[in-house]
């Protein structure tokens, strides 16, 4: 890792450097959509659109690695011909990924670059340059519970905001070359390191709430059949699947064939799916092994907190808060964790770990 310091005004030079070297530069910016105010990762044509001090975006940068609608092959019913779709080779720089989103990408790497390498994911991963950026926790952000408030790999370049300047961490050769070629950067001095430490302390202190994670996987298993606990959550669930779509780690997909109008040729699509859809667990003879809202919502969090944890040692949540906003009825990871930790036999009056998070979950219910 090479460390450098740049003045804030130099950021535009970095943007221009990226533009010169990549087909597309994307970053957080105000949505051009019509609903409420929101930020999205989108193509940056104007540096001034970039919002590096952003809170969160509707969709995570996952969309650049797992296309919501990947066309994986073309077929012909009459001839039986099948033509695999080659992964699209576009070089892209993602500006401003938060530590949670980079950590989410590392989790997706375990899944899509593990025993079975997914060519589309792999191609996108190889051709993407990642610039991480430091953040400050907003209410509802619980990355601290999953250790994803810090990131030490998975990026090319990381910018830590020191107020009037950025502390740069260059993790790769392309990053070092980019900094060398386009930026007026200097070596960090003791005062920079000191400010970096102060900034880190300020960041850690800004978390107002830490979910109680003690024995969570075990507790989950033990309370899996607790109908009251799960019905309280499941009765609220709209079964809309918005949580899965906005999750930087959810990665389930469905495969669907779509015929052209001639009825002979067509495309096979790989599209985002959600275990909150009742269709997800439907098998032959109309049998559905998760037929209720409750069974589906219980399963979704089980996979996140237990399923992958017992296999890979990682929970499939980075605490980014996107689902807090997407879910209209306040079903958040923090709520599920709280429900699991609650002790039905504990003394009445015992203080429950409530906090700004509850308030924010309602306010942000957006």
């Amino acid at each position, binding site marked *: 890792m090479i460390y450098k310091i740049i003045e804030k005004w130099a950021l535009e030079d970095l943007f221009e450097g990226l533009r010169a070297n990549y087909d597309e530069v994307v970053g957080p910016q105000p*949505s051009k*959509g*019509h*609903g*409420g*105010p*929101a930020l*999205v990762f989108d193509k940056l044509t104007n540096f001034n659109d970039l919002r590096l001090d952003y809170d969160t975006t*509707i*969709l995570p940068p996952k*969309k650049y690695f797992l296309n*919501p609608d990947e066309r994986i092959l073309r077929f012909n019913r009459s001839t039986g011909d099948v033509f695999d779709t080659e992964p699209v080779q576009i070089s892209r720089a993602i500006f401003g990924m938060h530590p949670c989103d980079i950590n989410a990408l590392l989790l997706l790497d375990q899944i899509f670059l593990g025993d079975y390498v997914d060519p589309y994911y792999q191609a996108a991963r190889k051709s993407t340059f990642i610039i991480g950026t430091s953040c400050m926790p907003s209410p509802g952000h619980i990355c601290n519970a999953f250790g994803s408030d810090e990131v030490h790999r998975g990026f090319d370049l990381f910018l830590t905001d020191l107020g009037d300047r950025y502390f740069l961490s260059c993790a790769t050769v392309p990053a070092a070359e980019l900094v060398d070629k386009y930026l007026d950067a200097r070596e960090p001095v003791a005062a920079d390191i000191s400010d970096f430490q102060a900034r880190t302390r300020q960041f850690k202190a800004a978390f107002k709430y830490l979910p109680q994670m003690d024995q969570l996987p075990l507790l989950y298993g033990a309370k899996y059949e607790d109908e009251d606990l799960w019905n309280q959550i499941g*009765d*609220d*669930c*709209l*079964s*809309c*699947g*918005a949580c*899965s*779509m*906005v999750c930087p780690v959810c990665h389930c997909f469905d495969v*669907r064939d*779509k*015929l*052209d*109008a*001639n*009825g002979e040729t067509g495309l096979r699509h790989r599209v*985002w799916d*959600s275990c*909150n*859809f*009742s*269709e997800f667990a439907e098998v032959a003879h109309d049998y559905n092994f998760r037929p209720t*809202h409750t069974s589906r919502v219980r399963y979704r969090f089980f996979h996140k907190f237990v399923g992958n944890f017992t296999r890979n040692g990682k929970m499939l949540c980075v605490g980014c808060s996107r689902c807090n*906003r*997407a879910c*209209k*009825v306040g079903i958040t990871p923090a709520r599920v964790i709280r429900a699991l930790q609650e002790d039905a036999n504990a003394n009445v009056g015992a203080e429950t770990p409530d906090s700004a998070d509850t308030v924010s979950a*309602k*306010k*942000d*219910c*957006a």
Partner: protein
Amino acid sequence: MSAAIHNHGSSLKPAYPRAIVLSLASDFGCQLQLSNIADLLDVLGTIKLEYWQLMSSAVLPADYDIAIIEGAVTTQDHIELLQQVRTVAQTIIAIGSCAITGGVPALAAQDLGKHVQAVYSDDADRVAAGRVRPAPISNYVAVDYLVAGCPIDPREFVTVLQGALLGVRQRQQREPLCAQCKTMEAPCFYSIRAAQDIADGMATPQALCLGLVTRTGCGALCITRGRPCTGCRGIAADANLSSARTFIANEGLDVDDFDDALRIYSSHALDDGGEEQ
């Protein structure tokens, strides 16, 4: 809530299945959408279209394989026609909200006599003879395939028709719209409506988006174009109406307004025991 499934699993036998297009009570908008199919000639190459009142003066043949039906049932004649069609057609495809949910015509189902009286006065029995409570066609006959929407999306119709021709079972997406909306990355109408944001024109006050409970599949067509969902595809099979109403109340919106908005396309389901369909 989705219409009963009649028959599946066997593809239609003739090389070019004979199709007819019928219309009950509706504004013909969905038929018009059929004529808007971009690759209409390709589609017509896969069937033998024998009857389509909007396009041709040919008379209804005695025999056919596929009946494509638009509109709600509002008269005794409609019921008899449907029952006749069901005995002939191997496959019935219901298109549009009128046919599937009762749609706008079903709004008149409550206090039907009063509405008829208001419109036709003393002439009601002559002008609106044989009237029945407006209802979706699945109230009277089994329906094999559905194309939801007001009006339908011609591309979705083509996909459903192809499924019918192949004899494959129609996909049953039961979830409401929100997931598609997120995938399109459309900002939510229920996002934080801070007073300042409203004043700045950044947020719409009191937007009543029905996507929360509406059958998905439209690709968030309205929302991505700046309009809240009006629920034209009907209530999703997995919709959680009670939780959605609680949310609406928590948002400071009126639950009755929410229900009234839903009634435009789903009054049959809400008021006429439509859940049983």
